[in-house]
């Protein structure tokens, strides 16, 4: 009997431990999510309510005016166009180039060691900001969206992860196809790629997110203000004291919406696509894929 009681005591202790642990971790998770919820709520709040100075957790009076203003402004549409082009062109290029190189390095080709070192070295040493800047200028890419696309199209880390993934595909499958008379390109397209769907999907989304978040390369290489991507646009809205210039409205009806509400609406608009694709992305994280990369 005393043994049973001891067991029950243990169990209660365990449950308490789990409860405290879960509570603490949920609190932590809350700090990651709550800022968004707050911004989302304020962005839908009517101007008069916001101006009254209460802090908002649930809008007393809803309004989509801020969104209507942001979405109809020329500033947003111009930036959206740039960001869509950068993401739309960059993402498929990124996946194809990285997968191709990763696959090449997974095969016992002559010079494999050299090419491996060549890829790894770019992780270890970089030329720096100014040589890259001069290089982009020499290549005639200034003020082009390709200056934001091309340098990010092939990255050592992605290549290495893909390489170790391809190495894990059993060679018998490819051998069998070879005997059937399949060429190397066909083997890659019809056997290797379909087997790598989940991995490719993950990297597609990684690439898309990083192109969507283009900021630095744009302020480095883009000179036309209208072609600046969304991240630059949102940052300008948040920092500017007179945001109607940045929003660039075609019709004049501003000033009814507080600037801060406009800013929050802009942040939500620019972040929304990431929040939408994120659940699809999240599925693949916890796999051992990442560790393989770190161990090189």
């Amino acid at each position, binding site marked *: 009997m005393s043994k049973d009681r001891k067991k029950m005591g243990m169990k209660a202790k365990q449950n308490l431990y789990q409860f405290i642990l879960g509570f603490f971790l949920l609190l932590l998770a809350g700090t990651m999510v709550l800022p968004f919820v707050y911004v989302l709520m304020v962005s839908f709040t009517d101007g008069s309510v916001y101006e009254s100075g209460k*802090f908002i957790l649930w809008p007393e009076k809803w309004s989509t005016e801020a969104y209507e203003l942001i979405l109809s402004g020329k500033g947003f549409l111009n930036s959206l166009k740039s960001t869509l082009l950068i993401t739309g062109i960059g993402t498929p290029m990124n996946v194809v180039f990285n997968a191709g190189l990763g696959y090449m390095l997974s095969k016992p080709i002559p010079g494999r060691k050299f090419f491996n070192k060549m890829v790894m070295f770019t992780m270890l040493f970089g030329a720096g900001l100014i040589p890259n800047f001069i*290089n982009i200028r020499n290549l005639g890419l200034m003020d082009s969206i390709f200056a934001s696309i091309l340098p990010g199209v092939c990255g050592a880390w992605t290549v290495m992860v893909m390489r170790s993934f391809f190495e894990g595909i059993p060679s018998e499958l490819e051998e069998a196809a070879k005997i059937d008379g399949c060429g190397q390109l066909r083997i890659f397209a019809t056997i290797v790629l379909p087997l790598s769907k989940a991995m490719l999907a993950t990297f597609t989304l990684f690439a898309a997110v990083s192109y969507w978040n283009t900021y630095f390369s744009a302020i480095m290489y883009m000179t036309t203000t209208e072609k600046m991507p969304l*991240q630059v646009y949102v940052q300008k809205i948040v920092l500017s004291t007179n945001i109607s210039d940045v929003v660039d409205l075609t019709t004049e009806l501003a000033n009814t919406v507080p600037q801060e509400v406009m800013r929050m609406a802009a942040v939500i608009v620019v972040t929304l696509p990431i929040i939408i694709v994120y659940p699809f992305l999240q599925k693949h994280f916890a796999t051992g894929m990442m560790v393989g990369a770190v161990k090189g």
Partner: protein
Amino acid sequence: MTKKKAAPVVVHKKGYLRKKIWQYRWIYLLGLPGLTILVLFNYIPMSGLLMAFQDYNPYKGLLGSEWVGLKHFDKLFNDAKFYRMLKNTIIINLLEMLTFPAPIILALLLNELRSTKLKKVIQTSVYLPHFLSWAIVVSLTFFLLSSEQGIVNKIAVSMGGTPTKYLQSKDWIYPIITIQSLWKGVGWSSIVYLAAIAGVDQELYEAAKIDGANKLQQMLKITIPSIMPTVVVMLIMKMGSIISVGFEQIFLMTNANVKSMLEVFEVYIYQNGVASGFPNYSYTTAIGMFKSVVSTGLVLLTNWLTTRKGYSGVM
């Protein structure tokens, strides 16, 4: 005689290699686009490092510009501003170093959690900030902390306090950027450790349980030693960036009041080499080169030290 003997071998080898390369021609073709990008955007710019030893003039180009030896490095090491930037960078990084155990602790705690549903909810939330741009993270910071509109100050005022200018305060700026980095990165960094924990041999725990080891002992004696190799690799990678800061974060957080504390190499190079009307390419290249060489050196050094201690390192 020896000549005759050697010759066929060489010919055979040459032909063999050529045949082998030909056999893999399509594989090479698959890798070619990626390699081209690396050459164009990673290797060719390295020739631009020569600018650091010249008075580079864009109209004369790399070949026509005047060579000045180590002039720019001389100037650099005698520049008070250089030491200020170095100091700021190191302080920022040391503060970030303090948060290095945070993702490890998070991974250990997540691993302890039994409810898979709860675990998933928490993981989904903590990974999210990694995917936001710095422009967004800085915007959120402004919404929370700005002196008039920020919610923190609004709450303070409503409770009878006075608003604090956090973003303009020299006391607050370092804690703020450290917390920003932690907030953005802690979840994502924990993935690597979670995966490492998942890879620990389960039999070790069984054996420990039979020996009567409790949860804490299991964590200290099994889990932590088992994930040490991963910790070491992450530490080596961290060492490589100890004299770098994230340009976007620092650039966007800078304002007139805290400028002196956020003067770092990256922003200086951008302002004097790219955004300036009279860009000083050579001097800014020299700064960049100093940074690259020190980072690479630190990675190699840490790697060497840890391999000597018996860890596998990164290379």
